[in-house]
């Protein structure tokens, strides 16, 4: 199991070509819209009409089957079933059931691959998000984006290969640097966070009073001195450093250009929603994601938070949907209109689902749901996914999977597969063994792929 020759450590220039990957890739890049906190599948995609008759009934033992609960609800005295308090309709040719909370997503139903049978092993946020993003619940492994940049390098000449953007303003669960960290892979593969406050990339801006011409002249002097050092010592690291300073200089121009929306057509910007010009919103980040994709960034990871509705679901969930529904749908359409959807894989989803029983106070105005790792819904679009497909089935309570389960490692294997990577072969030797994103597990879910 030797490391493949294509897995060179030289990043920041294109390495992707048909011969280099394990098989012909369908997707060249991934845009991952992570919905942190655990959006409720019951209110959004996993329609369970029979629950209406079971309102306030105790969750049957035959469904729970003694499976563990979080410490938050395990000591609850009752587990009353609550059906979704939002209506569903079937959409598109596929007839996918989609909630009234996601009207824009509903309109692109036929472009989506909705998987209702994702399941995970973790029951709390930190381990669950870490599991989805790194393949292990315990911190220390490289993130998915790092694996992809390590495996495929970057197509972008003057941007990092792995970019992360976070919606600001909302509360919700914390995030952690490790979710885009490179673990034991060299740090050049870590995700670079594009920020909406201060410099978009940390330390991007020159000090006040220093112009571009100044920086150019400065770098010329720097390169001259470094070059003479290189001549003297022969250390190739010096040549690399000279090149990295040049790359930094280019980034200082390309990042501002990236965030300059003046050349975007107004109708496109508006399609992402009213907030699309407001840095830090999910809408703005979705638009940026498309612009990054156009510039060859390999892995674009967005985070939107506050889906953790232990209580306050009735008001909180619609608010999250209003923030994300239109931009996510617009992104898919925008990519399609530019002919980029076929080689861009868009992924939408959280770290787990939510319980059918109510957590906390059940009133006419409000209810809550606890974490539920045994089934949840994600959707994907483009990049080799079979469009207009609803895959996987759960029981009447959306508690257990009854058909076509997709484990988190299966999902990871499938995403890598779309990029032309065999997940069992993208490995890195560290501490005496070969590590991979999917640990020793994972099967590509062929049935959701375009043939």
């Amino acid at each position, binding site marked *: *199991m030797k490391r493949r020759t294509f897995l060179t450590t030289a990043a*920041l220039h294109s390495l992707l070509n048909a011969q280099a990957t394990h098989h012909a890739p369908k997707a060249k890049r991934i845009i991952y819209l992570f919905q942190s906190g655990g959006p409720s599948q019951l209110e959004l995609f996993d329609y369970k009409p029979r629950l209406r008759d079971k309102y306030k009934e105790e969750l049957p033992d035959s469904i729970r089957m003694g499976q*563990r609960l979080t*410490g*938050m609800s*395990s000591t609850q005295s009752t587990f009353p079933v609550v059906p979704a308090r939002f209506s569903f309709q079937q959409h598109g040719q596929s007839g996918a059931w989609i909630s009234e909370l996601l009207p824009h997503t509903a309109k692109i139903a036929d472009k989506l691959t909705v998987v209702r049978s994702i399941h995970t092993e973790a*029951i*709390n*946020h*930190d381990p669950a998000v870490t599991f989805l993003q790194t393949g292990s619940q*315990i*911190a*220390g492994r490289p993130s998915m984006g790092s694996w992809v940049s390590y495996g495929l390098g970057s197509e972008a000449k003057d941007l990092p290969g792995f970019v992360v953007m*976070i919606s*600001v303003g909302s509360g919700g669960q*914390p*995030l*952690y*640097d490790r979710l885009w*960290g490179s673990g034991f892979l*060299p*740090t050049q593969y*870590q995700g*670079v966070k594009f920020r909406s*406050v*201060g410099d978009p*990339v*940390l*330390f*991007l*801006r*020159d*000090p*006040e*009073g*220093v112009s571009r011409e100044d920086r150019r002249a*400065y770098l010329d*002097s*720097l390169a*001259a*001195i*470094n070059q*003479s*050092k290189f001549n*003297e*010592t022969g*250390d190739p*690291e010096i040549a*690399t*450093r000279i090149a990295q*300073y040049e*790359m*930094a200089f280019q980034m*200082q121009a390309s990042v501002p250009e990236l965030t300059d929306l003046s050349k975007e057509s107004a109708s496109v910007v508006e399609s992402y929603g009213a907030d699309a010009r407001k840095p830090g919103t999910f809408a703005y980040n979705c638009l940026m994601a498309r612009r990054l994709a156009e510039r060859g960034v390999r892995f674009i990871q967005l985070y939107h938070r506050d889906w953790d509705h232990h209580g306050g679901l009735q008001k909180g969930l619609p608010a999250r949907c209003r923030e994300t529904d239109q931009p996510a749908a617009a992104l898919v359409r925008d990519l399609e209109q530019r002919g980029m959807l076929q080689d861009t894989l868009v992924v939408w989803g959280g770290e787990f689902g939510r319980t059918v029983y109510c957590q*906390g*106070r059940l009133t006419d105005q409000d209810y809550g749901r606890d974490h539920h790792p045994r089934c949840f819904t994600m959707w994907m679009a483009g990049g080799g996914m079979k469009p207009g497909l609803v895959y996987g089935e759960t029981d009447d309570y959306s508690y257990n999977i009854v058909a076509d389960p997709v484990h988190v490692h299966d999902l990871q294997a499938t995403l890598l597969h779309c990029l032309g990577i065999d997940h*069992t072969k993208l490995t890195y030797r560290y*501490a*005496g*063994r070969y590590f991979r994103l999917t640990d020793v597990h994972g099967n590509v879910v062929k049935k959701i792929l375009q043939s």
Partner: protein
Amino acid sequence: MLAGQQVEFNRDIRPILSDRCFACHGPDAANRKSPLRLDVPSAAGKGSEIYARVTETNIAKRMPPAYAGHAALAKSDIETIKRWIDQGAPWQNHWSLVAPTRPNGGGIDEFVRRRLQRDGLKTSAQAPAHTLLRRVYLDLTGLPPSPELAAKFTIADYERVVDQLLASPEHAERMAQRWLEWARYADTNGYQSDGVRDMWRWRDWVIDAYKTNMPFDKFTIEQIAGDLLPNATLPQKIATGFHRNHRTNAEGGIVEEEFRVEYVADRVETTATVWLGLTLGCARCHDHKYDPLTQKDFYSMFAFYNNVPERGLVYNFGNEEPTIKAPTPEMAAKLAEYDAKLRSAEANWNALSAQSGKERKIWERRIKDRKEYDWRVEKGLIIYDDLESCDTPCTVTEGKRGKAAQFNGAAQVSAGDKANFNYMSPYSFAAWVKPESENGTILSRIEDYWEGEGYGLYVKQGNLHFVATRRYTDISLRLETEEKLAQGKWQHLAFTYDGTRKGAGVRIWIDGRPAKIKITFDELTYPFGPKVPFLIGSGGGMKFTGAIDDVRVFDRALTEEEALSTAVLETIDQIAAIPEKRRTAQQRAKLQLAFLDQGASAPIKDTLAARDAARIERDKYNETLPTVMVMVEGPKRQAYLLKRGAYDARGEAVESATPHALPAMKPEWPRNRLGLAQWLVDRHNPLTARVQMNRMWQMFFGTGLVKTVEDLGSQGEWPSHLALLDYLAVEFMDRGWDLRAMEKLIVMSEAYRQTSAASPEQWQRDPENRLISRGPRVRLPAAFVRDQALAVSGLLVNKTGGPSVKPYQPPGLWQELSGGAYREDKGDGLYRRSLYTYWKRTVAPPMMINFDSPTREGCVVRETRTNTPLQALNLMNDVTFVEAARKFAERMIREGGASVDDRVAYAWRVALARAPSAKEASAARLTYDRFVKKFDADPKAAERSLNAGASERDKSLNITELAAYTMVASLILNLDETVTKE
């Protein structure tokens, strides 16, 4: 390997077998695909069989099996196996599992030369004096030499400088920096909302240990088991903080045992990595696939660490038990002063007790006829409601003291936004109650449903019931009295809580009798904040039925006497009128308190006040003392083999033991952490000394003699110089585990003192310098890149030890991930060495991460170095370096002489300990000239360019000049050579 060379099993054959065969034919019984094992001595006889199978042309029979997706062995590997067979296929135990013996040969340089000769290479010339000076300074202290020293240093001074550096506090800090990384040290918990903890006293301990050159065996024993040493001292207990540095989880809803197991496993894995250089973590879920480490070995090690009385779900803010107060010696001295003051104040008070008694009797006689003379505890009384009246639907009824409020299951009395207590604030309640229902709320400040947030005192199913809740199901304190309250009868309740976050901190008296308390849930790990008023008779989804009178709320924990006094209805004159022997305990308490407050003479009052003041002062000071989380050996918790590593899949019970493939523990050692520590640093342990010396080599040369410094097992790299490694290991032990002696041995060697410049041929023949054909040339670790800039600029505040500091960090980094604001320090905290930088694990300091620092989420011992554009941006634009450039420029102007050339030359000496070459000087000069011109034309830009950082600009200097020199200074800080050890 070279043609014609003798094949050596461990070097040449084992890596092939380990990498390609052991997974199915190795130590992991569960995964063994046939009875054939290639990891045991009997494999020696299997040479031909191996050869036949790996060269098999029938692909269905070939090994490694094509059907499992494995490729055939490389031709060169097959060739090596063939030669091994030709030489008789001898077998060896894995080298690192056999104790090192002193190899033939006379020191580092001989071993290095021998190896070079074999490859037809030579050592390089000695590095120039200035290069060597800067190298050894950076290696031993992480800081550059002063320009004065650089100017006069000659090779003749080298040894003297080395000795000075080894004895310096900066050296101790330098060594601590790397130990902190191995020890996954941080200032936060590391999971989810990543709350703060305080382990800096442990860091101080590490620095102190290096300062005194504590032998490594002692260093080991104290950190692993200092608490178990006979008459353990405070520092020895602090040392055990090492194994409390792992991440801990405070996320609500986690399964406690899942994470407690995780903590114990982390200790096992960290111990194995730091001391043994073995990947024992691989055996957590199954037998190791390459090394002779079984799953049982893992859990036998686990058993050593399993008895800490700790929880899986921890406090999010502050240190989690077990902890100890860990004052610095100065603090301890100060505390002793307070203690002495208190003792003398107490003695003064006790000396007055007889006189006080006499005075009281006189006072009693004086006041017993003062009608309705009453007294009550006023200190801390924040709510007092006599309930003489109340609004409908509440009615007024006959009370215990005047009228009382009659609640009918629908009423409430509000005291407004008062008594906003939290989990760490002490408080007390007192009230008279006459319940007429088994369920009802006496007083509360809690959302109006049963599982709401806040606190409440209830009657529930007849018992007195107390709840303080953040989230009822998992973050709350719940307790109740064993006895029921009588229905329809007035009873007095007194309740005190000491703010310790524990049920044990609650005391309850019913009618003056201490009530037995049953704690039903004791996980008040998080602050709470009810947004509702303080209510009497309502809250938590219940209303009171019955009467309530005389409600008092205090924002402190009353003493027992005070609590008892609240129950006494009799006025002071009435009590005084009762013959002394017939007074109840409550009455006596009330009378005594009243006397001390009202009737006592000035000397008694003053003496008492002095005692109370001394106690408060002492307690207040004691409260400020830092604590540190430590190891404590609690009652034995049975350890089990956990199937698949899952916390809830227990297999056989296991007892503490060291891995079976390593030398056994001596019978006289205890089977606990202390024995484990002794075993780690025992002469017969084949790994510890080698592992430490390998990493010391990494510290000086950038790469270990075994490159995989975290793994000296079967899958680890074969050592480039096994004899050298063994020599160092034996020498280390022979010299009493003396780290400094070994450092000196290395830096005095010719190998270390070689020049790092190399010919193209050398680069080609030995690209990574594994053969040590030249001196080390590697980029500085993250911390030193920053520390050096601070030193060069003169901003460095070189103070040893103390709490963590918060230097510059781009604003918003914490908010956008985990909330909470990063508050930069002012003054010194901005300029301390990086090992004191506050380390938040989930949002680590970005500069440190950009320059490849480990994230501190787990133990990391391998040094890595990347070269990225983010590093360039960081060095050019981060305020840390922009400010450093400005101060460096000021220094150039003030101290560097009069001419530009002199100043440039001076700057080179400050940063690089040498004079610039003509080319360098002219490039710097060019930069200077360009920027002087620019800033002359645009003085505003000059001024703006000097704004970065909190330090004052030297206003006496010409702005244009300073701005131009600042660009030159920045240029120097960005040079490859500057961030590199040459």
